[in-house]
């Protein structure tokens, strides 16, 4: 049986949040298409992308909701936090709006905390790491912010693709780990994770013995 693109055992729902122009859509595009989108238009409301990855030998489908950063879409995008298993909070390392970077991040974080599950994995991403010359936010600063708030953290570049894969995969690993140690309840609706009880093959082999038993009667 060919392991086609549709065979997976989990679906994880992600959202990408952050100010406008930090490169959320480019990150998604880089992750799903492995290409850099140079002239990325402003996102209207929300957009949506998927990719199948593998964590610990399990095929996992990521369903990623890329939200618009513009303030006027805030009301709309807030509705998409529901039941996200992972939240990628993106900022731009080249724009440091005097301390207000923190304020912005804090407000995004508050939103994320208020509108998602307690178990939602929040990952801080400093994008545009290729523009080292224009850097305004140091790695240490951001790292400290992440540590203080218990976030995972990476700097990456949607342009070169550096660390993009890692950010998405690390989030998935963390979610998977939460599932494994039982802190994430899969049976609950809107946990942001959907589990397929068995792989298709197993379902088949499970069905058959039963059917044979039925016949023997």
């Amino acid at each position, binding site marked *: 049986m060919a392991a086609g693109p549709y065979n997976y055992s989990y679906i994880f729902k992600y959202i990408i949040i952050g100010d406008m122009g930090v490169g959320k859509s480019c990150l998604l595009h880089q992750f799903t298409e492995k290409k850099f989108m140079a002239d990325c238009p402003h996102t209207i409301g929300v957009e949506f992308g998927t990719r199948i990855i593998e964590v610990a030998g399990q095929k996992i489908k990521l369903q990623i909701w890329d939200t618009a950063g513009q303030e006027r879409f805030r009301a709309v995008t807030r509705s998409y936090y*529901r039941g996200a298993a992972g939240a990628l909070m993106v900022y731009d390392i080249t724009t440091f709006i005097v301390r207000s970077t923190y304020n912005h991040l804090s407000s995004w974080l508050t939103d994320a905390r208020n509108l*998602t599950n307690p178990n939602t994995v929040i990952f801080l991403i400093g994008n545009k790491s290729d523009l080292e010359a224009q850097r305004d936010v140091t790695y240490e600063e951001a790292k400290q912010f992440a540590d203080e708030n218990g976030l995972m953290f990476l700097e990456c570049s949607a342009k070169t693709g550096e660390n993009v894969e890692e950010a998405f995969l690390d989030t998935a690993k963390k979610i998977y780990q939460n599932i494994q140690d039982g802190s994430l309840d899969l049976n609950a609706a*809107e946990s942001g994770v959907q589990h397929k009880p068995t792989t*298709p093959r197993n379902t*088949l082999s499970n069905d058959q013995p039963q*059917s*044979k038993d039925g*016949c023997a009667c």
Partner: protein
Amino acid sequence: MADREVADVMTTSSSSSSGSATNNPLSRKLNKILETRLDSDKEMLEALKSLSTFFTSNNIRTRRNLRSDIERRSLLINEEFVDCFKVAKEQLDSICEDVQAMNECCLDMTSRLKTAKDQTHDLISQTTQLQTESQKLQMRAQVTDVFLSKFQLKQEEVQILRGTRDGSLHPGFFKALARVKQIHTDCKVLLRTNQQTAGLEIMEAMALQQESAYERLYRWTQNECRMLSGDTPDINNQLCLALESLQDRPVLFRYSLDEFGTARRTAIVRSFIDALTRGGPGGTPRPIELHSHDPLRYSGDILAWLHQSAASEKEHIQALLKHCAATSADENIHDVLSHITDGVCRPLKVRLEQVVVSEPGPVLLYKLTNLLKFYHVTIGNILLSNSSLLNTIDEMQTLCLKMFFNTLNYNAGKLLEKVELPPGDLGTTSSLSNTLQLVQDILSSHDSSVIAIDARKQDFTQILNCVIDPLIQMCSVSASRLPTVDMATYMINCLYQIQNTLALYEYTDQRLEMLNAQIDAHVDTLVSEQASFILTRTGLSHAYGIVQQHQSAQGPLSSLHGMDAVSMKAAMSKFDSYLASPDSLTMTQCSLLLSAKQRETVKRRSSELIIAAYQLIFSAIMDVQNKYAESNGIVPRTPDQVIKLLS
């Protein structure tokens, strides 16, 4: 050998003795003997040597007996020889006998073989014939086998196709089905050859197999699909293959998809209700209905949930139809998706209607309309526009917009129903400012909404039609009982306020133009009122009227009543005092104008009118035909001076 030599010598000597008679044989003999070289004659030497073995003693007796001895000895030896040969001969004889016997035997056998051969000849030819025949048959058998293996199903394949009683599907089912199909197609080749009967029969058999297999497959698919009603349907590869195969039977394919659609439809309705009423585990995320007090968030959450579900459902169908041909898949994906999302329409409609009907106020209604419009576009990227979900959203949007305009109209109606009297300061009434605030709120909410800019123009025009016209009407009605000057002032103030509000927004140009024209008209009124007020107060209005209408036929102006030099002089002195403090004769209403610019305009333009009037009177008095004595004394100021004083 030696014996023979000896014998030879003996014969020679005897012959020599016998031949001595002729030609001196003795001498010849002797010569011969003498010539004989004993050393070189080996035979002689051998003979002598063997002679020496038994001729031991050389005496007369022995010499006499030598000959007989030798003869005896020779005899003996010959006898011995004969004996020896006898044995050999006997043995040879026996061999000869044996060979003869063998020969006989062989002959016998030959003859027997010959007979046997004669006898088996037929058999052999028969066998050969049979052999060739058998070879031919074998060949045929091979051909038949190959034919059968190509044109007949194997027993196990038939078994697989027939399936088990409980309806489960064997993993090899699709391979078997493909073979049936292949055979069926291959039969067409058969039909083209002269094997038509076989071709037709096989074709028929395969068609039967195929039909029953498809039927079974359909039943299985139907069952599988029916079970896909969980939150995450487990779409296994077998099911995808099943749908791929069923493409050949469009009706069954369609029915299977319908079954899938129905199962998913049930699932999505259930999860929708769950998300609305139960929320996530332990209440996080909270049930959507918990926010029903906040209509915008409530509706937004509902629509976002539907958007996400629609996207997921689309993925499920794409997964299901991954093997199917792109054309049929595309078409079906939309149909099925439309069917799946059809179920949530009712609960969605009920809830949105509740929100809309609960009279959340025009601003909220407008925001809600825009939200619905946004989701109509967003979900429209996933579903086709003819799907019932989109229709429902569209319907709700229309309803919402209708309710919005209803509320606006109602508000407008209320304005006209209970017209407020203008306040004493002739400023705007509270209902006007409230309504303008409302318009401002509505129009501003568009800025924060998520709709494309293009949609604004039409909306704005309609909203303004709905509010501004009644508003102006209201102002007119409320102004109708006022005296002209008050009315003009009041109207200018109201229109100015409206204009100020609208100027902040796009697509209001036409309105602004219209308002401007109206304001101008009222300003004109005010200006002429102000001018005539001043003329009246200065007592020039009468003179001005007469001068305007004066014709030379009436005689000189000074002779007319009230136009004599004395009264003109009195009026002029009054006018002069006005010129000393022009503001003293400004009407109170003019100072009540809200806009400083308009106040200025009224003042400037009324002054211009006054100047024009003065100019007319001035030139009339200075005209000699009008026969004013001391005309310079009556009008001490030239128009230029007046202009200077008034500007």
